[in-house]
């Protein structure tokens, strides 16, 4: 099992690279088409384009970077490399999704930036009584 992927790379035509390359171009264009040319709902567009992004990232890792490649007799190294990337992806999702959730949830109804800026709290009382009062003192 050791060095298997590495050994296969030695001769011949780089099929893996070519397939990876073609797929990545197809995925890119397809994501662009989904995003700009279709009438899907925003949620679906986001799900699909991010799905493609993760797929493409996986392609790069497997086809170009040989993430599973073992260098020693034990399989530990390959596992460490894959585990490391998976854990990193997990942390990345926590950081991004967590931050967005925490920074918007609950705040959403209070965050003035997301509201139209026409009036401020006119409903509560008589502060719209005009500016003149301000200049009295």
């Amino acid at each position, binding site marked *: 099992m050791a060095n298997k992927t590495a050994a296969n*790379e030695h*001769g011949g035509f780089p099929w893996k690279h070519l397939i990876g390359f073609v797929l*990545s171009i197809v995925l*890119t264009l397809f994501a662009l088409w989904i995003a700009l040319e279709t009438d899907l709902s925003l949620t679906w567009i986001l799900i699909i384009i991010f799905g493609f*992004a993760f797929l493409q990232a996986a392609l790069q890792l497997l086809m*170009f970077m040989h993430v599973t490649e073992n260098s020693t007799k034990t399989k530990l190294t390959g596992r460490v*490399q894959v585990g490391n990337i998976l854990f*990193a992806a997990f942390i990345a999702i926590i950081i991004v999704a967590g931050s967005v959730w925490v920074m918007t949830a609950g705040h959403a109804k209070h965050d003035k930036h997301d509201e139209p800026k026409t009036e401020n709290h006119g409903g509560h009382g008589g502060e719209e009584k005009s500016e003149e009062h301000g200049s009295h003192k």
Partner: protein
Amino acid sequence: MAHVETHDPNTPLEYRSETGRLNILGFWIFLGAEIALFATLFATYMVLTHRIADGPALGELFEVKSLLIQTFLLLTSSFTCGLAVHEMRRHNVKGLMLWMIITLGLGLGFLYFEIQEFLHFIHEGANIGTSAAWSGFFVLVGTHGAHVTFGIFWVTMVLIQVAKRGLTPATSAKVFITSLYWHFLDVVWIFIFTAVYLMGMVMHHG
């Protein structure tokens, strides 16, 4: 520090020295840290993306043409970089050099168009100090661009070493590590492509 040399002819050169093996594994771990780094930048960008103050909206200024040019340049450079390593594993120094130089060229091209785009945005009144959203954009995309710049210098340094010393376990490990770095930049770009540009345009038009 154990110093075990492996002489199995099936083992690629870069894995033959203990130092090479350790460095490659260490670099993979470093890429894990880089993922956390970019994730933080993405989180920042995503949180701030609507906070445009008096400046233009992000999606308003994005252009498909410039985006596609940059994306294809970088995607292709990742492919050619893979071919370079493929050639290295066939002990073809010339092929390695050729494909790597093409990679560098594509990388420079990417940088050229990215800088053009930045200048365009600045011309349109969007710079790092325009609003929180643009700060997030410039620092996220700029950090990626800085990585590409660093990568170009780094690959050049390593190629000089290959030219001077030929392919040895030491130099080939360096080439392999720079290739990992280069592919990784492409991975990051995929997410910038999706989360910044596509999302920005969808949000703006849709």
